């Protein structure tokens, strides 16, 4: 059969560079930190055969998870990541829906250009887009200078290095992910339904809430997950825009690894983060599945 090499090459690649590394993370999360290279024990001694394997398994424990549960730094980091991701998802929806709606109402010949304008920022570096806000939000930054010039404020506002800056960063970065699925749902919407509702005595606002919003629901749900899932594990945005009081789990993991060099705890943090992410990921997949079936 000729198809086997075709399957085997990408399959083995992903097994070796995606699945195996992940199993190693799980294994190290069950190990103990040690002052050695690599900085954890036990290491599997294959030469010792079965006895070595039994010895290895008996030394694994859930100590690091118990540590995560007992130290409230991690609790607060997970909870505040969830909170930041949720609030920014709602904010992104509030900004993204009107834009997607405007695009769907726009004349047909404008739409490819508008699409292009939404997609283009996605191609430019996330790091640069986040950096752009550093220059705008800092105390002597563009925004504060502008507001002081207008006379709205007397003293510069402290925005950079606060949670608000993190919200702005996440909304800005993930806005295209919210706009595109909502736009594609709204674009398919049959305009005659709204006309029918208006003919039957609905006001425009009422028709919007009764027809447009429910029919664009799959797009709204998809958009929310596409913002929420990456926002939860975000590192660059809280690290550059947030302050010392901004706790996000991606940042904690990074610091645990690079600054504290505690690999077992960093691995346990990663495993728990993934367990939390499974719920939104499964819900997202189900929403996609439903849409695909509805499309058939």
């Amino acid at each position, binding site marked *: 059969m000729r*198809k086997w090499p*075709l*399957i085997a*090459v*990408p*399959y083995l*690649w*992903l*097994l*070796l*560079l*995606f*699945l195996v*590394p992940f199993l*190693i*993370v799980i294994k*190290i999360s069950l190990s103990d930190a040690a002052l050695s290279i*690599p900085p954890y024990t036990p290491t599997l001694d294959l030469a010792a055969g079965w006895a070595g394997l039994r010895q290895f398994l008996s030394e694994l424990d859930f100590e690091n998870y118990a540590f995560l549960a007992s130290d409230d730094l991690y609790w607060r980091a997970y909870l505040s990541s969830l909170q930041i991701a949720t609030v920014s998802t709602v904010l992104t929806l509030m900004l993204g829906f*009107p834009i997607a*709606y*405007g695009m769907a*109402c*726009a004349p047909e010949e404008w739409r490819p250009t*508008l699409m*292009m304008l939404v*997609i*283009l*920022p996605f*191609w*430019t*570096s996330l*790091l*640069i*887009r986040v*950096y*752009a806000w*550093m*220059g*705008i939000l800092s105390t*002597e*930054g563009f925004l504060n*200078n502008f507001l002081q010039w207008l006379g709205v404020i007397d003293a510069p506002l402290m925005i950079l290095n606060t949670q608000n800056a993190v919200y702005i960063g996440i909304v*800005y970065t993930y*806005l295209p992910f919210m706009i595109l699925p909502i736009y594609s749902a709204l674009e398919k919407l049959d305009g005659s339904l709204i006309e029918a509702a208006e003919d039957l005595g609905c006001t425009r606002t009422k028709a919007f809430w009764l027809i447009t919003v429910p029919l664009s629901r799959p797009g709204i749900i998809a958009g929310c997950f596409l913002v929420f899932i*990456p926002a939860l*594990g*975000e*590192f*660059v945005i809280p690290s*550059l825009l947030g302050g010392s009081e901004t706790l996000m789990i*991606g940042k904690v*993991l*990074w610091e645990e*690894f690079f600054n504290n060099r505690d690999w077992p705890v*960093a*691995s346990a943090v990663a495993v728990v*983060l*993934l367990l939390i*992410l499974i719920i939104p990921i499964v819900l*997202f997949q189900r929403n996609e599945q439903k849409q695909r079936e509805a499309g058939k």
Partner: protein
Amino acid sequence: MKRLSWFNITALTVGFAFLYLPILILMIYSFNGGRNVAIWAGFSTKWYGELFRDQAFLDAAWVTVKVALAASTFATVLGTMAALVLVRVGRFPGRTLFSGMIYAPLVMPEVITGLSLLLLFISLGVDRGVFTIILAHTTFAMCYVSVVVSSRLVTFDQSLEEAARDLGCSPVSAFRLVTLPIIAPAVISGWLLAFTLSLDDLVISSFTTGPSATTLPMEIYSSVRRGVSPKINALSTIMISIVALAVIGTSIAAKRAAVRAQRDEQAAARATG
């Protein structure tokens, strides 16, 4: 939905201003003469000059381009193969695991991907540097490529390839002569996506590199952590301009090629049917 109300116009204006003003401000201030980024001190291109005299940035740029070229090319080959497996090959043992491994990296937080790959490289005893970054980038980028290519393969009329086989083509040459030209636009945009993903990546590179290799995003990150600097504005302006020109250019070219390919495919389908 044809009436563009004042509400729509406001939403579009505010939305696109929000998306583009920060980038525009960043680019304008790269031409600022003063050291302070916020206070305008006359037009100057001196930061561009400084940038091109900074050896650390030039070295990092070279590493980044090397990594991106290699990783995106490997990712395109592997991702196209994976797409062919997902769309063409029916059942085979471990198919669910395979498609799971294709989709999982798309939603995996970068910190976890980076951490897990680093732990793999350490337990294998691989020397970390350009080579390990390339392996890491290839792995996550191939999943994006396979999603882009498989969405094109789904709409592809397989009878064309069967016709080529009937006419005496080997499977490989049927793929090369018939399938590849038709899916080429998707393969090219997959490559471009992989290239920019690799170019922009900070987190996975930071985990998987060694002391010998620093990429441009890593250099930018460590400079930016110390505060805003006009030199970074200049560098950002260059990077944004290159990406914008490349994306707009290829999307116009791809659209033309897609229209042409669609026409050829339809003509061929008519001829064979």
